[in-house]
């Protein structure tokens, strides 16, 4: 984060005239003296309380729940890692790994489509004169629509008999391509991934547009003057400078796709039809917690939450710190 306060005129003047006074760490943005404790508390406490009670406390409780045995809603005593063992063993373990694989496919497929196209659109739009605003708006609109709406809209459009997609294919003579898109176990997951990418594409486009706007155009122009082709100038000059933005897109896509639920729920139901071929961790977690006849449901669902949390949060933190280092090297 940029600390612009360091650059404020007051700071500059102080720095030039004499070494800045050491004993006044409270001077940020030149706000003068620090208000008394109770005033600071009035400002900070409401947010702190709300966030702690409804976001942080439940996550720690989930950790605690996961270490106990359960009979319905009654805790029966510490069982150590028993709930975790249940997750990875037997038929549940098979479901877990299958769902995890689908999440990875979601992430990889969405990344591939949305990052490539999002970047291409951002770069091409830089040059576009006519209709730039309109095009950007068009790409971003699907991103604002609820995933539930996107899911139902696409399942109507992909319906084998009444759907618009197959109607278009038949109209242009591609009858052979008219498929039961969401009903075929082999096609359902790729179809979902494409719908997901359709919804998300505007987001990387916006991030890349913002990142490109922050790059001085002189770099690429200098390369062009030196005789590099447009493609080479982009590949060797602009693209490396976009690595931080690509990193941000990757991390956010990762977090989003590891927790995907709404879209799959709307299109394929809570079981990930057909035959679990589109089941994902989010759905498995939901079913384990709220649609599970096992009296130990709470412990098992909490164990799954802990595993997912550690995995998603751990990878995002690691990726972000690698990114920071990359960025530091670029400067």
């Amino acid at each position, binding site marked *: 984060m940029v600390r612009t306060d360091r650059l404020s005129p007051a700071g500059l003047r102080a720095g030039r005239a004499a070494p800045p006074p050491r004993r006044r760490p409270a001077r940020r*943005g030149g706000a003068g003296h620090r208000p008394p404790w109770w005033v600071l508390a009035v400002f900070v406490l409401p947010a702190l309380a709300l966030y702690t009670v409804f*976001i942080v406390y439940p996550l720690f409780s989930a950790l605690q*729940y996961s270490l106990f045995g359960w009979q319905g809603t009654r805790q029966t005593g510490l069982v150590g890692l028993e709930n975790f063992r249940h997750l990875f063993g037997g038929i549940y373990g098979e479901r877990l790994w299958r769902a995890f694989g689908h999440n990875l496919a979601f992430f990889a497929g969405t990344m591939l489509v949305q990052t490539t196209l999002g970047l291409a659109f951002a770069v091409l739009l830089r040059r576009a004169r006519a209709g730039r605003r309109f095009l950007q708006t068009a790409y971003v609109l699907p991103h604002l629509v609820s995933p539930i709406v996107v899911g139902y809209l696409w399942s109507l459009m992909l319906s084998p008999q009444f759907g618009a997609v197959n109607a278009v294919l038949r109209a242009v003579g591609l009858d052979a391509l008219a498929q039961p898109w969401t009903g075929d176990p082999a096609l359902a997951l790729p179809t979902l991934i494409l719908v997901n990418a359709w919804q998300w594409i505007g987001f990387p486009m916006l991030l890349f547009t913002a990142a490109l706007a922050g790059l001085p155009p002189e770099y690429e122009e200098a390369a062009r003057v030196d005789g590099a082709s447009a493609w080479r100038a982009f590949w060797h000059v602009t693209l490396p400078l976009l690595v931080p933005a690509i990193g941000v897109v990757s991390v956010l896509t990762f977090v989003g796709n590891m927790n995907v639920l709404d879209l799959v729920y709307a299109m394929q139901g809570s079981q990930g039809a057909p035959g679990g071929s589109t089941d994902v961790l989010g759905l498995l977690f939901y079913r384990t917690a709220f649609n599970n006849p096992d009296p130990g449901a709470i412990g098992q669902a909490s164990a799954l939450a802990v595993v997912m949390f550690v995995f998603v949060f751990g990878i995002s933190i690691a990726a972000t710190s690698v990114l920071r280092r990359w960025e530091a090297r670029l400067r």
Partner: protein
Amino acid sequence: MSAEASVAGPRRARRGAGAALGGVAARVLLWGYAAVALAPLVLMAVSSLRPEAELRADPLGLPTIPEFGNYARAWTEADFGGYFANSVFVTVTAVLLGTAVSVLAAYALGRYTFPGSGLLLIYLLAGLMIPIRLGIVPVFYLFDMLGLLDSLWGLVLVYAASGVPFGVFVLTAFFRQLPAGLAEAARIDGAGEFRLFGQIMLPLVRPALATVMLFQFIQLWNDFFFPLVLIRDQDRYTLPVGLTAFFTEYGLNQSLLYAGLVITTLPLVLLFLLATRQVVDGLTAGVNR
């Protein structure tokens, strides 16, 4: 502009037909994808105005005579009016509450350093990367204990809390950028801390407040998971859960479903078209900082 003109000369000489062709290809790609992005949304709007029989005969046609009856039926018969009211109440209240507490905290954390302030900021910002849905089981039992299960106020509280990390993130950065002299001048005039905040600082961060609120509005309006778990009574459903209830009941009635989808989507599209800048700022708040 001038830099562009000075290099355009030699460059233009070198690229000829190939570049022109590239330009055409780029335009085809850009406008072609715009059609892909918009067509489903246009189809949704058009189909919501067509009678059921026509939809079944031809999913692609235009309405012969626009039929607004679908909306009237979706609004009353299928309870979309009620879902809409619930969504408006929950989203607006949660956005206001979440932004209010965020702006207070961001002011203290952005303008002052005090023991623990750095740690506090990290603690609040950690929420940006936390998948909060994973805490749903304890939230469920917490709400059960507090009598907030099946209540719209319960949703408001979780939603407001979920907005804190993003609100603090954007607003702290904004408060830091405000010039130093302002506070001093106000103090010399005898303003206390609360007056300084309310009458001087708050009006200055209005653009950032708009960004934060719009961004939250979109997130919360679209949320499906929390009401799916926390709300049981159909009279208290918000639009996304109402849609799933509707889909299982009226699944075969496409025209009504299209109307329901438009009702759910329209407020967001209008907001976006009215305040494109702020929405885009919110979406891209993570880069270039």
